[in-house]
């Protein structure tokens, strides 16, 4: 309760001061806008659906990229986690590729896929695969030896072993990596849209800035914060529930 009250002091204060200063003309610089204008821009873009469409576009690319990264990352990570020798052999190559920022591949991706979902999803995939890979390797390596021996004793095929024993056992930690990757996915998607790709929230942001619709721009920023916050909260909940379901091993 106390946190709620104290925590809202600063935002409310900022909003009031902002509104007052822009009305009295002190903050007349175009770049500032005012809270009331921002609120109305937010409302109208929500009601005419443009904000939601843009949100969906961003999510679409982010989800696709994340899905690709998850499949590639988890499978490769599981294999490397189970075979430490293989991991040590491939490690220098991985360490060499990892520092290259995913966004640097934007022009390359553009050349290969042209504008659209594919280009964006591929960048997201590249960015997300590394944390997922690393976390999965660590998670698989940390699996209790006994479990692996049980799998062998049961003479399960490799895919069965993977699906029934290895992945569930490593799930809790992989999940943490997935949450990190999910956050990265959204950030990367928006970034690609700001720089290059003409779709999604990032694109609308840059559009608003270029057409000097400052109120709309801030409204979209606010919306991004809300989306990010809700996403984080949702991910934390999902993580908690599924770990409980599978039991922590």
């Amino acid at each position, binding site marked *: 309760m106390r946190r709620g009250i104290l925590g809202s002091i600063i935002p409310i204060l900022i909003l009031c001061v902002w509104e007052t200063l822009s009305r009295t003309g002190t903050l007349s610089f175009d770049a500032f806008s005012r809270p009331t204008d921002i609120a109305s821009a937010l409302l109208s873009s929500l009601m005419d659906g443009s904000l939601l469409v843009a949100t969906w576009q961003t999510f679409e690319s982010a989800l696709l990229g994340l899905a690709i990264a998850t499949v590639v990352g988890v499978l490769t990570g599981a294999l490397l986690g189970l075979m430490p020798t293989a991991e040590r052999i491939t490690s220098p190559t991985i360490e060499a590729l990892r*520092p290259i920022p995913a966004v640097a591949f934007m022009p*390359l991706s553009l050349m290969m896929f042209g504008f659209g979902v594919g280009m964006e999803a591929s960048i997201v995939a590249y960015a997300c695969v590394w944390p997922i890979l690393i976390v999965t390797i660590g998670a698989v390596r940390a699996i209790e030896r006994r479990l692996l021996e049980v799998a062998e004793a049961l003479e399960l095929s490799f895919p069965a072993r993977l699906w029934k024993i290895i992945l569930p056992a490593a799930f809790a930690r992989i999940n943490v990596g997935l949450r990190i990757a999910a*956050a990265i996915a*959204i950030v990367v998607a928006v970034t690609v849209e700001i720089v290059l790709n003409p779709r999604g929230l990032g694109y609308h942001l840059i559009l608003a800035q270029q057409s000097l619709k400052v109120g709309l721009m801030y409204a979209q920023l606010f919306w991004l914060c809300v989306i*990010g916050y809700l996403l984080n909260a949702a991910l934390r909940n999902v993580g908690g529930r599924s770990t409980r379901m599978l039991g922590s091993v």
Partner: protein
Amino acid sequence: MRFVDPIKLAALAFAAAIILGWQVLADLRLISPIFFPSPARAIDVLISRMADGSIWVSLAATSARMAVGWMLAAVVGVIVGAAIGSSRLARDLLDPTLEFIRPLPASAVIPVAILFFGLTNTMSLTVIAFGAIWPVLLASVHGFSSVQLELQDVADVLGFSKREFLQKVAFPSALPDIMGGLRVSLAIALILTVVTEMQSSLPGLGWDIFYAQRSYRSADLYAGLILLGLLGFVANQLILLIERRTLRWRNLGT
């Protein structure tokens, strides 16, 4: 005869195989060389750019931008983090606001920064600092707010002032957390440097890559990527080194 670690040899072989595979694929021209130049051509470009000096200009520009933005974020992040972390009231006042702003992609402030500063270095540095400050800030808050209670008691008994406490006890105690945050911040700083360079055609590696794509010079593009990878790798190693030296005391011990 010196015994060479077979694993390291195999790792080298693996990396070499990848590059070789790249070369072969490029030679086979399965994918148009416009997208897929051979490593040989990419290296060629690198060498010629090293000769005419243009590489150093780009490298210097990008490194400088990244370093300055990161250091700005580091200083502000630690100071603000210290202030917030050591005061319960500050934490209660600011935590909700920070939690709300934190998930915002740093690149989203690019349009705002452009409005205020245009397509300039200031814009770039502002965006870099804004994005890079979060890991350091949060790590700092965490570090300063979790000083061992016994150490606080010791400081009280010894009669340290608040400033002495922060300097002699809280800051060194928070340093492991802060260093971790600084490492992540550096990675973010690099990313945002590249993004802002691409966005605003400021001279640097990001811009080189962007421009190479525009003029369909794929070898230049790949050369730029390789350079970026090197820069990222070196930067990371540097900060790991600093971390190891500063936190020497952690690695010792039974």
